[in-house]
């Protein structure tokens, strides 16, 4: 196990291993997202109060999960890069940031679209919405900070520090609906109790969430591979690889 993790730290090994893993995650992502979308939008029952607008949950919740998970992954990669100086970790952190920002935007946008018919407003400065907006700004800050230095290493370290400190926002987002009065309702799902919706509603949602995670993994692998080639373009193994493919 440790040997495997150590190997992953080498760009060349990561490049080889990810090539084998990648297709599986792409296939899982495609199958799960297509199934979840069709099931959630066409076959799952409508809600007794909200009717069909409730179906936005099948995009909103997976996007919100991924927005937060991607941030935690990015911060973990930043920690690995700072402590163990593993460059692949920094390459992964680089490619996770735009994905996480996009997911945060999707969560905010779908939430706003959902808010109009249910709450009667698309935006309210409550703790959940505001902390999610801060998450978007943290992502944009990490992306901008990385680009703001002429040396790649300084940029990488600054971005890692911001990501690690920014992780404090994640528990704030998660517990905002319990700590304060908010317009956003409390969580429907919990580890300890059964979900506050029947299985016909949460099963397609679970499929969507798993599909989004697979998509995240596949995309991160793919984009980290391109980042490896870009950064290691002068290394001998990359040159040989390029010569072979010609």
């Amino acid at each position, binding site marked *: 196990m440790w040997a495997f993790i150590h190997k992953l730290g080498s760009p060349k090994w990561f490049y080889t291993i990810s090539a084998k893993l990648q297709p599986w995650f792409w296939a899982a992502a495609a199958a799960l997202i297509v199934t979840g979308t069709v099931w959630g939008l066409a076959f799952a029952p409508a*809600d007794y*109060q909200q009717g069909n607008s409730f179906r936005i949950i099948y995009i909103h*919740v997976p996007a919100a999960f991924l927005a937060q998970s991607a941030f935690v992954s990015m911060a973990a990669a930043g920690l690995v890069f700072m*402590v163990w100086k593993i460059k692949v970790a920094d390459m992964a952190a680089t490619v996770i940031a735009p994905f996480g920002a996009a997911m945060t935007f999707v969560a905010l946008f779908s939430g706003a679209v959902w808010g109009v018919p*249910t709450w009667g407003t698309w935006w309210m400065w409550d703790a959940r919405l505001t902390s999610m907006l801060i998450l978007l700004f943290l992502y944009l800050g990490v992306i901008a900070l990385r680009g703001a230095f002429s040396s790649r290493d300084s940029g990488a370290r600054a971005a890692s520090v911001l990501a690690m400190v920014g992780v404090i926002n994640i528990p704030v987002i998660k517990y905002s609906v319990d700590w304060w009065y908010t317009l956003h309702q*409390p969580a*429907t*799902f919990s580890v*300890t109790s059964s979900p506050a919706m*029947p299985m016909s509603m949460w099963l397609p949602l679970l499929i969507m969430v798993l599909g989004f995670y697979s998509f995240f993994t596949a995309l991160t692998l793919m984009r980290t591979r391109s980042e490896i080639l870009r950064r290691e373009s002068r290394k001998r193994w990359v040159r040989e690889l390029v010569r072979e493919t010609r």
Partner: protein
Amino acid sequence: MTPKRKQKLFIILGLVSLAAVAVGLTLYALRSNINLFFSPVEIAQGDAPLERQIRAGGMVKEGTVARDPESLNVEFTVTDYVGDLEVYFSGILPDLFREGQGVVVVGELQESGRFRADQVLARHDENYMPPEVAEALEEAGYQPSDFKDQGNMAGPRTTDG
């Protein structure tokens, strides 16, 4: 792990914990500003300012919604089951507005103790169910909210949704 890396790891973890404590204390100090709305009992205690735009929130008390048939005026009582707040409003209510439903009202508290709302927002709870299930529950003599109470008794909420 080499001693140098170990030291670096502890420095980073230390800094992040310090930042977390700082953020935590700030949020704790600002908790009354972060709360989106005043509850009726806080307004009854006089915590809310008069004639300034504030938000109040709670449940629409059963049997208190009075609509004027000639206009868009509507009056209702918002309750947190401890205190009550009388609200009057003129305008279009959101689709989810109904008795027993959570609402947030934006407006000004009058000297009379009544609340003049400029905007009424509906809150909804974390429960979702198909209409047939809700009907079956009602026929069996339950409210959809009973379902929620059972869910809460099973344990505290921990995950997002």
